[in-house]
């Protein structure tokens, strides 16, 4: 932002206003305590709670500007610090509604950020309580299922009659035709792979669903190695059920060509937005 249409450059007042003109929000916790958590925040900021009724916002004072940097290391540091504070609150009070990075409550004309924050807590209190009940005693886990395409393709080729006959035919064809057959083969293989991925997804989904309270299907990503991610889930799991989920995932992980990544427990980031 090179130009601001409305730059206040009052040296004394203006600076003070931007210095502590906003509150960086980490999470809303299930506690009415008004406490200081110490300098554990982003860039060592003093973190404290702002209570309303029986909930409290966990914040630090900051200028009314977003944290931004082009340096990945700096951003990583901030995100880890953010998570550290949320974890601290989670440990301390058991139930938290985490916020995404860079959620900063600003002051408005005629009201300070603290007031804005309290107004928000008051206005959204019912919703916050409802969300808190929904995640009480639960934690979020990441479940990602990968397969190795070569291994899967081999097993499909072995099972699919269409593909094995195509493979046979290619051997007896001249080069030009062989190329065309190869294309045909690849397309057929691709179709089979897609159908297989679909079937696996449905199978795994129903197996996992039994052990979780709620789940979100996330976009699949491309891992660094030559595996493919066929499933990416965020699961909300009751405290003592994670071992059941772990056992189920283990059986998937043991299947040939499949592997599972099981991360957590995370604060319920994926189950507080709706």
């Amino acid at each position, binding site marked *: 932002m090179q130009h601001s249409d409305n730059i206040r450059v009052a040296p004394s007042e203006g600076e003070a206003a931007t210095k502590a003109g906003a509150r960086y929000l980490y999470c809303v916790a299930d506690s009415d305590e008004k406490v200081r958590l110490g300098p554990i925040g982003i860039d060592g900021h003093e973190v404290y709670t702002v209570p309303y009724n029986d909930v409290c916002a966990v914040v630090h004072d900051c200028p009314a500007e*977003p944290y931004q940097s082009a340096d990945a290391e700096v951003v990583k540091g901030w995100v880890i610090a953010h998570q550290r504070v949320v974890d601290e609150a989670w440990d301390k009070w058991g139930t938290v509604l985490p916020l995404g990075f860079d959620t900063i409550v*600003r002051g408005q004309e005629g009201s300070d950020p603290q007031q804005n*924050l309290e107004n928000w807590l008051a206005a959204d209190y019912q919703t916050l309580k409802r969300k808190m009940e929904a995640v009480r005693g639960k934690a979020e886990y990441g479940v990602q299922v990968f397969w190795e395409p070569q291994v899967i393709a081999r097993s499909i080729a072995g099972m699919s009659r269409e593909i094995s006959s195509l493979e046979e035919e290619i051997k007896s064809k001249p080069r030009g035709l062989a190329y065309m057959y190869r294309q045909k083969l690849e397309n057929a293989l691709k179709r089979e792979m897609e159908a297989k991925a679909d079937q696996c997804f449905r199978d795994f989904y129903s197996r996992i669903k039994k052990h979780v309270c709620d789940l979100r299907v996330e976009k699949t990503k491309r891992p660094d190695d030559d595996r493919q991610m066929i499933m990416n889930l965020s699961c909300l799991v009751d405290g003592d059920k994670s071992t059941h989920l772990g056992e189920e995932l283990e059986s998937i992980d043991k299947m040939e060509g499949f592997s599972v990544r*099981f*991360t957590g427990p995370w604060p319920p980031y994926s189950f507080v937005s709706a």
Partner: protein
Amino acid sequence: MEPTRDSHTTLVDLLDRVLDKGLVLYADIIVSVAGIPLIGVNLRAALAGMETMLRYGVMQEWDEHIRAWERDNRGERELPLASGEQVVLKMLGSYLYSQGIYTSWRQGYFYVTDRRIALYLLTFGEVLFQAPLQSIKGLATGRENHFSGDEREHLCLLLEGGDVAWLHALDTPQLREAIERGMAALGLTWKEMPAFAMHDEKATKLLTDGEEIACAGKMWHLMALPSPGGVTTDTWQSGHLYITNRRLCWWYDFEGRLALEIPLERVAASTVERRDLGPALRRKRVFDVIYETEAGKRVASFSGDRLAEWEEALNRIIARQGTPLREETDTCPQCGEAAPVKELLRSGCDKCGWVSPRVKQDMLRATPAR
């Protein structure tokens, strides 16, 4: 299978959650840039792989480079300040530039410093308008329909010497507040003016000390103007009528001068009646102000909107000034005796028995033929 949260191997999972998810607050209380939550743009770019880095990173550098080049070459500079001068507010805005028949809103950045207000064109380093805070004698906030269709708020400054500056800013009340605060800090006082009194520069130019405008507006006036051949003809001309606490005056727009000036104590009567003003303008309302001059009575005729309100306002102002409208008097055309006009016209002269031709006609018509 045990879940893992090892900080090295699960960083990506953490970022996925912390950057893209979490509780959502309504946008009007959180900091964002142009309504876009930052996370999506900047931080994602910083964390993206090499390919994306190139796309964003290189662009950013290129952008910076272009901007820097532009800055240097266009010489965009801040307003030059006197030593010790402090800028209190900088805000995009415009002021009404008027030179002869040319008027336009000129845009720039308003700077309110501890001593002055200036409108500065950054690109050309040109001061478009400036006034020391000491020279501000009055302030008014007015609303006017802007050509864009919105009602726009303006700030008018009445300056020493009677000039009026019309200003508009991104946040006009904030601009005004900054000026007022600056003036208060200097121990200056100012007068709150009614906005219409600042309607235009001419209005304040014609005011004498202690004079205040009560009514102002567009008004046509029947003017005696010389026409070719040495004949003077009455023609309707456009202008602005002002009623102040002292005078009634009409500003002739075309020549940019005060063409009519009637002290209130000279106003004898006023009426609103319907007359034909021309072939196409039949039965139009006309506001007549009858006033006394050394050479006898004159009538000034005006045509415009809401004439009844104008007449009422004129009467009210005159009543307030303690010189109620005297009944218009004239002299009997036969014996020369002074009598109220209305009486003369209605029942004739009670000294010599003269009656107006119209009354005679009416009487004739009323008398049955013998």
